[in-house]
């Protein structure tokens, strides 16, 4: 039981990291599309 909990404890962080990464990619694409639609540069 303890081994399973420790495994989950260590491996949950890469899962969260990948979830945040997908959120940032989605956000970046939305920023880029909005900038294109408005005819301006991203920054």
């Amino acid at each position: 039981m303890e081994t399973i909990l420790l495994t989950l404890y260590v491996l949950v962080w890469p899962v969260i990291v990948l979830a945040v990464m997908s959120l940032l990619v989605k956000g970046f694409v939305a920023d880029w599309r909005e900038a294109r639609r408005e005819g301006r540069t991203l920054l």
Partner: protein
Amino acid sequence: MEDSGSPILSTATVVVLLILFYGITLYVALRIRRKKENADAYMTAGNKVGFGVAAASMTATWIWASSLYASATSGYNYGISGPIHYGLWGALMILFIYPFGRRIRQIAPRAHTLAEIMRARHGSSSQLLLAGSNVVGSIMSLMTNFVAGGALIAMFSPLSFVHGVIAVATGVLLYTFWSGFRASALTDVMQVLAMLLLVGIIIPIIFFAAGFPEAFESGSANLSPEQGNFFSSEAFLNQGAPYIAAVLAYAIGNQTIAQRLFAVREDLIKKTFVTATVGYGAMVIGVGMLGVLALYLGVEPAGGDSNNLVPQMAAEYLPTALIALFLIIIIGALSSTADSDLSALSSIVMADIYGQNIAKRGRANPQTMLFVGRMTMVLATAAAVIVAGLQLDILDMLVLVGALWGALVFPVIASFYWQKVTNRAFVTAVLTALAVFLPVRFDWLPMETAFFAVMVDLLNAVGIGVILGLMAFGFFGLRAGQVTGVLATVISLPLTFGWMHEYTVLSASLVAYAVSTLVCIGMSVRSGASFDFSVISRRVGDFDERRSETDQDAPDDADADDRETAERS
């Protein structure tokens, strides 16, 4: 970090990797370069950056090589709760500035630096006090990143430490120089996405390659009872508690976070801060788990230096191709922070020193400002390379600066909310706190004398109350902040009395919080001043737009007390 023996990668491989990494970053930065750069965009990208770029940039800026190494060290020293006591508090550092950040943007929507707002609120002495602490902190951070880059390259290749420092410094300066914050933010996106992807892949690979989960059972004898306890008090007192004390200080004292606060679109502040908090926390705690795995495996850090743990685990359990990518992750982590430090430094010198103290507001030439900003970057890089070459104990210096920032936290936050805070109260509070901080930090007081020990312990309890009170105030309002502050002081007094003065690093920081708060409140409560916060947004604005305007709303060098007197009348 010391050279652990034979190099893992060849000189040619590392040189090609560095050229590829900095080459691609430079290419991306040049894509947004403008023939005629705008001074405001160079500092804050026009205050309208979207969620994706802002959240990625904030995450990348807060993650640096030292945080990855330190989290793993914390896991190795304090066991399974160690990475939490490093990464969680570091992540909350971002979150705790959020409520104050909303207030700051509300009263100064077009600001570039916190110090700039302090000038509009109080006057130039408060501004220069805050700007000076920001400059010292940014230069130290820059040096630390160059040192980490030099040490990493020296460990992974036959190249020397000095070669590594020069390569990293040149690479970062090249892509940040032309477009300032805009380049920093855009390249942060690329760097953080690469970092997140690779950490998401590397940790499971090392986990299974090293024989886990079975190694949790076979290696459990390598952990002490405290290291095996998720609720370890040792981990909290030695790692977590001093970090909590630094949480607000770093957020207020570090211009890199403030710069992103001013850059992001105002309606996206909450979303950006929450995402950066989660992203930073997961990444840093995740890498910290390598230290926990090393502890279970009984790994001894090369040369006795725990900073070698992460590279050691990577070198031992990753294939060569992933080791090369791992090197790039760390270079990316330290470069993203270094470019933010350069942008922050240039903004402070452009806005606070040139824009408001050398040229008068409304008369600052944006083109001269850009020149000043770029020259600041060159000089700061050169200075950081020279000092990095001296290989001073930068970590100690950073701890010192972080604690010094503690003296600024209450006066700065109070100045954004409380009309009664005066320039004199602000400056006196900060200088008095520094005067008390130094003898506590450097053991100049005879603590065997009961008077000093009792005084420091009393102030420690007040300091704890101030920190928790400010956090509660930010999220739940004034009454909650006051109640939390008083309760935390009363409860912590018997718990900390008699021993806490022996922890000088933590005590000095808490004393700085306590003294600055007591002096600031004591001097302000009877001041009779009533500052009108709505004037700040008129006094702090774009330099480019104001070039041709009159400065009727921006009194150039109005002394704070004069302004407050005028407003009272």
